[in-house]
């Protein structure tokens, strides 16, 4: 028996890591890639667009309600400001609020969910009560209260959105931790001498992460919509142009200047759609049960 070594499967030159497999599947996912490309285009446009286009979005250069034409490609709003210039610069606020708020909600949600799911018992009960408290708060009203109390700066708005949107992530993370915690390889890691922080962060987290990544992608979309909603209600940062702010300011003139409302609305719509497609692509790439076995 001593010399009897079992043969290994014909190993590929680079052993396929699960993460690399996922990436490969994602790159082949049409909807996911479409979403990714749209988002990339929106991000590039809002980063480089204002400089390339060169029109000050606050400058009342055109006539009010100037329709789209050679002077102003997407028309001008009720003050004669260039809508395209607003769209390009407004993407920065919308995207950065979306990303930052999603990050905050994921950080809070994962921390709460991981601790509750790993430790169980009273830790779980207390943390889940807190989560439920945040879940039953009407989130828009709560965010409005925060903004009213602390002022309508972009930072406060981002924080407010993050703080009201973490409970979903927390519940998801907790469920994943409960599932993974009972698996034999986690037990094996306990038997192998893992300390709690090692088990929580290095063993369970990587295996609980896939659905959390999908939820995080979708949280970006929700946060963009949320910011749009706040700005629409006039609670946005008055010093920063965002798509929601453009919508809110021009909504009364919808019948006179449809372009000033339609284009920011379309920008929000396509960005959120792209985020959803991206999430779907990630979900399919990550979830092996839906993946066809090759």
């Amino acid at each position: 028996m001593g010399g009897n070594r079992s043969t290994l499967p014909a190993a590929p030159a680079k052993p396929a890591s699960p993460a690399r497999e996922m990436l490969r599947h994602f790159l082949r996912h049409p909807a996911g890639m479409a979403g990714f490309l749209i988002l990339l285009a929106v991000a590039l446009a809002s980063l480089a667009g204002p400089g390339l286009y060169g029109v000050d979005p606050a400058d009342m250069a055109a006539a009010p309600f100037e329709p789209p034409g050679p002077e102003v490609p997407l028309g001008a709003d009720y003050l004669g400001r260039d809508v395209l210039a607003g769209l390009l610069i407004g993407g920065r606020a919308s995207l950065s609020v979306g990303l930052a708020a999603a990050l905050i909600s994921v950080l809070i949600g994962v921390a709460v969910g991981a601790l509750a799911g790993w430790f169980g018992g009273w830790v779980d009960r207390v943390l889940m009560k807190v989560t439920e408290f945040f879940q039953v708060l009407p989130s828009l009203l709560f965010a409005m209260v925060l903004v009213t109390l602390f002022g309508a700066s972009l930072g406060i708005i981002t924080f407010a959105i993050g703080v009201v949107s973490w409970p979903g992530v927390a519940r998801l993370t907790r469920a994943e931790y409960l599932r993974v915690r009972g698996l034999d390889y986690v037990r094996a890691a306990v038997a192998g001498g893992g300390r709690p922080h090692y088990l929580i962060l290095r063993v369970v987290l990587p295996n609980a992460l896939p659905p959390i990544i999908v939820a995080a992608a979708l949280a970006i979309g929700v946060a963009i919509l949320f910011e749009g909603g706040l700005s629409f209600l006039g609670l946005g940062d008055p010093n920063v142009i965002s798509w929601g702010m453009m919508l809110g300011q021009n909504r009364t003139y919808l019948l006179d200047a449809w372009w000033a409302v339609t284009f920011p609305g379309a920008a929000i719509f396509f960005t959120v759609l792209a985020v959803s497609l991206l999430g779907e692509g990630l979900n399919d790439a990550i979830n092996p049960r839906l993946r066809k076995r090759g």
Partner: protein
Amino acid sequence: MSGTTIPPLALSVEHLGVTLAGRDGPLPVLEDVSFGVPAGRTLALIGESGCGKSMAALALMGLLPEGLRCDTGAIRLLGEDLAVAPPARLRALRGSTLSMIFQEPMTALNPVFTVGEQIAETLRLHQGLDAAAARAGALEMLRKVEIPAAAQRLDAYPHQLSGGMRQRVMIAIALACRPRLLIADEPTTALDVTVQAQIFDLLKTLQRETGTAILLISHDLHAVADIADEVAVLYAGTCVETGPASRVLAAPEHPYTRALLACSPRLRLGAAAAGPAPDLLEVPGMVPPLGQRGPGCRFAPRCELAGADCNHPPPLRPAGAGRAAACWRVGDTTLEAVA
């Protein structure tokens, strides 16, 4: 059992070939597999995981997963070729003439209906019984599968029953319409040993009553030895040995069957229990995965008797009374002639 006349075949599988659509053309999953199950008898299809035994069962049911197709050979159920039957005909046959029980009775039962409803539904669907008659039929089936307090259990949900009870319910559903062929895919693997023996006893009793032919799929030759009349041993998609169960067990012809029998420990009782156990015989390596099967005899890379002639695939050749083996060595290396 060998002296009596052989009843007509309920199922006859002839030169069955199943392939998996692959990137570089179809990969063979099953190749030239032939076996027959006489009415009222049991044939055990034996093999390790990856040998294709479950695919054979699904091919018979017309339930091959996407990407797999049965492209050569015939599957004759009472003379009718299922391999070319239209889907509607297969649906009509499944559950009535042809039925199946699975390894995991929990996932095969619908959790939101009572077991009585699930048995009754089969009866209503295939025998056109009205609700009251179907319920009465369901109760009778539960009694037949020896479920204690059958009348109360009729209204139980699957999760309220133990694993053994659930498998009995599966058997009740499968046999409700008196099928001519029952396919049992590892029906006792998920159950405890004592329950396993009970389930096999039950299948045998019911078979005597109904004359159903049973195709039993298993990885364990020893476990099915008592219930099976005939066995067919599969290795890497080919049939390597067929014959009466007792004779194959007593004197296996094919080196793979011999290895399979020799490498599992046997219970030694009474006086034989004394003394330390010897090391088990080992077959080196493992079953070749799909697409990595050699051109010759599939077992040759692991076979201690392999020689140059094993580069040609050996056909299944007669090897004594009612037996056949696919090995060039059979004839010159048989351990002992079976009288």
